[in-house]
């Protein structure tokens, strides 16, 4: 029994010519992430919440600004969740549809978290990698600047900014963006210090690659793992910070809303029995935080080279 010669040859050819696609460290990490049940669960919840905030309006019977005059003044009695009048989550104390407002609030809260963490990723990574790679005096100056900025009580400054320049969502973004990258810069710098002593960086220097190309080609991709993890874990923190500010009444202003603002509104009405006004925003708030945290933890486990 000899295998067909022509077939053998074509097999040989096929194995020789086909370029094998490599298993990158990223695809390894993806496989590890998928094996982690809590993380995948968190990811699914996160996708659902995102879909809710993006497409939730499609199902809403009321706009987020319209007041249902039938309910005004009697919200606590008849404003509860009901499918008949289209207020799936009930109405708020002014008679506005809570479903529409939760959709909008979730979207804004997530946006605050994601934008803040994007700023952290871009600014913090480049800043930290530059400081760490060049080292010496530049590193000293750059990192002492970060220390100084960090020592400023950020909540206080943010509240001051909002009071002085007016409460706007742009101001909130600017404020959160300004501080979110500080921790990231420190973490990235620490990682860079260890990566830059690796031989492949030395090789790149010996080859004659320009310093900034080295940072972008050799340093940043190797610390992206930790950056992704930290950015994911940063989002809930930022959502929380925004909610806190909104809870104080300084954050997002009407008619816009965020989960924090909704929870604040709901907490005032809780005493009168309008439980839905706090329950729904709080549910989405907690679900978002947990989902981000689980995903972040899952990413950390998946990307952490020590587990290998």
């Amino acid at each position, binding site marked *: 029994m000899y295998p067909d010669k022509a077939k053998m040859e074509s097999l040989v050819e096929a194995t020789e010519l086909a370029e094998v696609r490599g298993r990158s460290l990223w695809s390894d990490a993806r496989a590890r992430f998928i094996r982690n049940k809590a993380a995948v669960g968190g990811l699914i919840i996160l996708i659902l919440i995102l879909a809710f905030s993006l497409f939730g309006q499609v199902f809403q019977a009321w706009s987020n600004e319209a007041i249902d005059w039938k309910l005004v003044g009697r919200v606590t009695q008849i404003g509860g969740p009901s499918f008949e009048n289209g207020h799936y989550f009930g109405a708020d104390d002014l008679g506005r549809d809570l479903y529409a407002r939760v959709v909008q609030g979730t979207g804004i809260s997530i946006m605050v978290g994601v934008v803040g963490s994007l700023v952290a990723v871009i600014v913090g990574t480049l800043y930290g990698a530059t400081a760490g790679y060049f080292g010496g005096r530049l590193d000293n100056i750059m990192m002492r600047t970060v220390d100084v900025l960090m020592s400023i009580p950020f909540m206080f400054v943010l509240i001051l900014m909002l009071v002085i320049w007016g409460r706007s969502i742009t101001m909130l973004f600017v404020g959160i963006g300004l501080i979110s990258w500080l921790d990231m810069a420190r973490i990235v710098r620490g990682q860079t210090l260890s990566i830059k002593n690796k031989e492949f960086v030395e090789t790149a220097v010996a080859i*004659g690659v320009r310093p900034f190309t080295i940072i972008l080609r050799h340093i940043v991709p190797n610390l992206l793992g930790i950056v992704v993890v930290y950015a994911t874990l940063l989002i809930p923190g930022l959502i929380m910070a925004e909610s806190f500010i909104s809870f104080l009444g300084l954050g997002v202003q009407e008619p816009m809303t965020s989960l924090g603002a909704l929870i604040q509104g709901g907490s005032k009405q809780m005493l009168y029995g309008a439980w839905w006004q706090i329950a729904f925003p709080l549910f989405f708030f907690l679900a978002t935080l947990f989902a981000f945290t689980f995903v972040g933890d899952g990413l950390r486990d998946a990307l952490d080279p020590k587990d290998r």
Partner: protein
Amino acid sequence: MTAPILSVKDLSVTFDVRQQGAWPWTPARKLHAVNKVNFDLKPGECLGVVGESGSGKSTLARAIVGTVPTSGGQILVDGRDLASMSPEERRVHRRDVQMVFQDPLAALNPRMTVGEIIAEPLITHEPNTPRAEVKKRVSELMERVGLLPNLINRYPHEFSGGQCQRIGIARALILRPKLLICDEPVSALDVSVQAQVVNLLMELQRDFGLSMIFIAHDLSVVKHISDEIVVMYLGTVMEQANARTLTTKPSHPYSQALISAVPIPDPVLERARPRAVIEGELPSPLNPPSGCVFRTRCPKAQASCAGDRPALLDLGNDHTVACPFHEEVDVLAAAV
């Protein structure tokens, strides 16, 4: 005589070592990693550098490729002093001098594919090369160093140590450098793979007309590939000679000890041969012995060895030795 491709003159490299918790104004202690080293490398030849770990041979290599700053002396590549170049000239000049590292995996960026890694020098120095051309040259070279070209999209962690070292060699050769510096290229590899890589390097050296510096702590590896051998100890050159003289008739006590450490595969000869065993540990380079740095472990040390640092004596025939009490010892010629 042809002009040397590389000539190192009185090269010194010192590191500042700061003590933990010292005041910022206390001067740092100086670590002389390389101390007044001289040698020339002729085009197409291979210079072996041997010494224990801590003898400064890796630092010497790094000073030549320029990843470690020198603190004295000159490095002339093709007659041009590296120190006198502007940073940009220096960067462009790096294409002529490439290096192969000791730890093959650590020298490859884990996030890049093999193709990207090998192509990096080419893309850096000839950024306008069309992509198809880059790929063609990478594939050719992969084949040349014994890797299947269809592995071009793989990642370094999918390869064995020997294959990683081949990748490193391919990367070093893609620009056809004039000088290749191999820093212990085989000491992290399995013995069975070592020979393959050494043979590959020898072939490539011949085919590409490379000049090479080959660093190792193991004399038996170096003597196969080198024309000339330099023996280093604590940053200082102890003896330099052509490979045959050095391995069969070493004159310096340290070289003799190194050679007797190489086992002979024949048990009868192995038992019968004279041994010069060195005892003790390598002294701290922060605090080297006065005079001859080898004197703390030298079997022939005299009182006078602690005085002045022994000058390099020329024994003729390009054989120099840094010991006034040198004597030729005929090691069994077949031995090593």
